[in-house]
């Protein structure tokens, strides 16, 4: 038992030295959506007081990634989660940015406490070898895989239509009222806390496929936010859409070009909040593929 423990400790010391001083791949590839989320949170936690604008949301907002990161804003959107998890991270960090943009699209998802716990651990800040991006497999993977995560190729329109059908099925059913009420109540508490600390909160609704716009779920979500936050600014999908036709990959996730356009529109609303220099983004190429099924 003594030898394995010594070997593990020695390897940890050597690896820590390597990630601190050794050569590193320029572009680190992460393995999964979960790792991407943890990396986004860990990057934020390194200096939570720095961003003037923070966006929280699901994979729908995550797709705005690079556009948003080019300014003073930090995109704390998490694939497979909702704005509530991002807000829980803000609360745990004690951060109060000047402006917080909250995605309205998937309020049925609650707080992922495990992710918040994992992502905000202090150890990765003290021991870089334990940071998600520095996992040995990620460095090996990055060194070996000098490629872009491929977007789906050759999937025919029938298959794309099936993905949209899945979303139509989801959007045809309203969110169970108790679940929505509970999450809106949590959101209200978070918003009150942030506003009490001096932050300005703005809600935004990302555009979705036109056939989903008038569905039971979409209407229910809009109505719930209007009722719960009557005096707040709510940016609607119409305000953020740049053209009459919205391009999505599956009905809810914008194509990269569309996401870039919507992201630019969103930046117009930052106002004078951006005074700090540009921030690094936590986006990796992985976020493109994961959005197809995970976010």
């Amino acid at each position, binding site marked *: 038992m003594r030898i394995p423990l*010594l070997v*593990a400790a020695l390897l940890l010391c050597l690896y820590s030295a390597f990630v601190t001083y050794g050569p590193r791949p320029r572009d680190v590839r992460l*393995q999964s959506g979960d790792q991407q989320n943890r990396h986004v949170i860990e990057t934020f936690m390194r200096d939570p007081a720095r961003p003037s604008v923070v966006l929280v949301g699901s994979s729908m907002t995550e797709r705005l990634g690079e556009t948003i990161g080019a300014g003073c804003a930090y995109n704390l959107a998490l694939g497979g989660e909702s704005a509530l998890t991002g807000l829980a991270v803000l609360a745990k960090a004690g951060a109060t940015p000047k402006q917080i943009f909250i995605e309205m699209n998937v309020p049925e998802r609650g707080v992922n406490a495990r992710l918040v716990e994992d992502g905000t651990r202090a150890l990765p800040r003290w021991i870089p070898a334990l940071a998600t991006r520095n996992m040995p*497999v990620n460095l090996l993977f990055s060194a070996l895989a000098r490629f872009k*995560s491929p977007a789906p190729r050759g999937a025919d329109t029938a*298959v794309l239509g099936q993905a949209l059908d899945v979303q139509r099925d989801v959007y045809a059913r309203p969110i169970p009222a108790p679940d929505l009420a509970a999450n809106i109540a949590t959101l209200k508490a978070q918003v009150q806390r942030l506003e009490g600390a001096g932050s300005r909160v703005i809600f935004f609704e990302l555009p979705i496929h036109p056939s989903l716009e008038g569905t039971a779920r979409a209407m229910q979500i809009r109505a719930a936010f209007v009722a719960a936050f009557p005096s707040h600014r709510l940016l609607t999908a119409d305000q953020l859409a740049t053209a009459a036709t919205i391009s999505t990959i599956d009905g809810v996730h914008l194509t990269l070009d569309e996401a870039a356009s919507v992201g630019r529109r969103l930046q117009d609303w930052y106002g004078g909040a951006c005074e700090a220099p540009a921030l690094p983004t936590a986006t990796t190429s992985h976020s493109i593929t994961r959005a197809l099924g995970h976010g």
Partner: protein
Amino acid sequence: MNYTDPIFFVFFALTFALYYTLRNGRLQVALLVLASLFFYAWEAPAILGVFLCSWLITGLSSHGVLVARDPRRARWLATLGVAANLGLLAFFKYKFLFLPAAPAVTAHSAHTLGEWLLLAPLPIGISFYTFHGISLLVDVYRGNTAIARDAARPTAHYLTDTLLYLAFFPQLIAGPIIKARDFMPQVSAKRFADIDFAACFRLLVLGFFLKSVIADNLSSQTIWIAYPYFQWRSSIDLWLMLLGYSAQIFADFAGYSLIAIGLARLLGYRLPDNFNFPYFATSIADFWRRWHISLSSWLRDYLYIPLGGSQKGPTRTYVNLLIVMLLGGLWHGAAWSFAVWGLWHGAGLALERRWLGSRFMRTSQRGVVGLRMLLVFAFVSIGWLFFKLQEFSQALLYLRAMVVNPASGVSTGMALLVLLYASAVALYHLASLLRARISALAKEVSYGVMLFLIVTSAGPSTPFIYFQF
């Protein structure tokens, strides 16, 4: 409570410390029972009632069998106990087949006991503790000498031991299924000095490595085996993902089993081995002697042999194999795909049986043995598809897409990661062949490397696959 949750470590450390400060065997049993019930109730306290009902039925009826002087009364009580256990399992597991997909009320908002029973979720571990209950009843009825000693003991002690057998937390949720005749004689006072820490350490490191590093990281790649997303992938991707899932399910379940065995040994109990390098199997029958050994031996002892086994002619043997594997499949869940998975293996076992005497199956020529291994692995891997995609039509669609799919190319990243993690599973199997040749120092160093990888490279913490059963 998941074995990989930090809270579990706190729970186990406290239980372990208190357990060995108690010198009295009865107090140790009482503590383990309380800890096990706390562990069980952690996620869903309401479901504890179902578990306690199962224990009362099993404990009282098996005690009745134990002390009965009239064989007819013993038989009647044993039958009643087994039927009640099966009824409980059938009700909670298969009621969802007959309920509307999205009921208007949930178990939380149920007003009456009847409503609650109908809407309550599947009690965790019910498949396992009902099988334990049946094992106890049958072993007692058969007059197993290891348990017969219990007839002379106070009823309260017997019932507490029975509760420990059913609730023992290292194996409560997902086994390994230990037969009553193997567990009950182990219930006695345990001493700290008797713990083989080195063996426990090795079991736990290997278990956590397989689960946290291999299975959890693979789960991020196999997540795409989901409808309709797999249709966006090329046929090669689909084959690779299936390979990944074969490695994942092994690492997940074998990892869990090793952790359970290691934890039990720390508490002074020995649980049976559950895996013996199953992907080295050279026939389907061999696979089932190596995979989920505790379930397959339970099915053999309590179902296949009572049905007549292979003693009643070839046709009856084939029918018995199909019945046992069909029920074994349905034991996993209330979905037709589990039935198909069971029948897939049952049909494989029956068909293979005809050829077991052939030269191809009997030769020890390396190339042929390797080919048999590959064929069995491919057969088993295709079977996993029915396990993963619980909608039968989707599994068929996946199979078709493995042959023809409009999408083309290979997702290099996914391929690289699947091959990397699957190769660790292959290496684990290969190491078993070289066990005798590997020096003690090399083995120790390899445990150190695994420990380092557990600390630095654990994947997203996902529930054990078998926790859903």
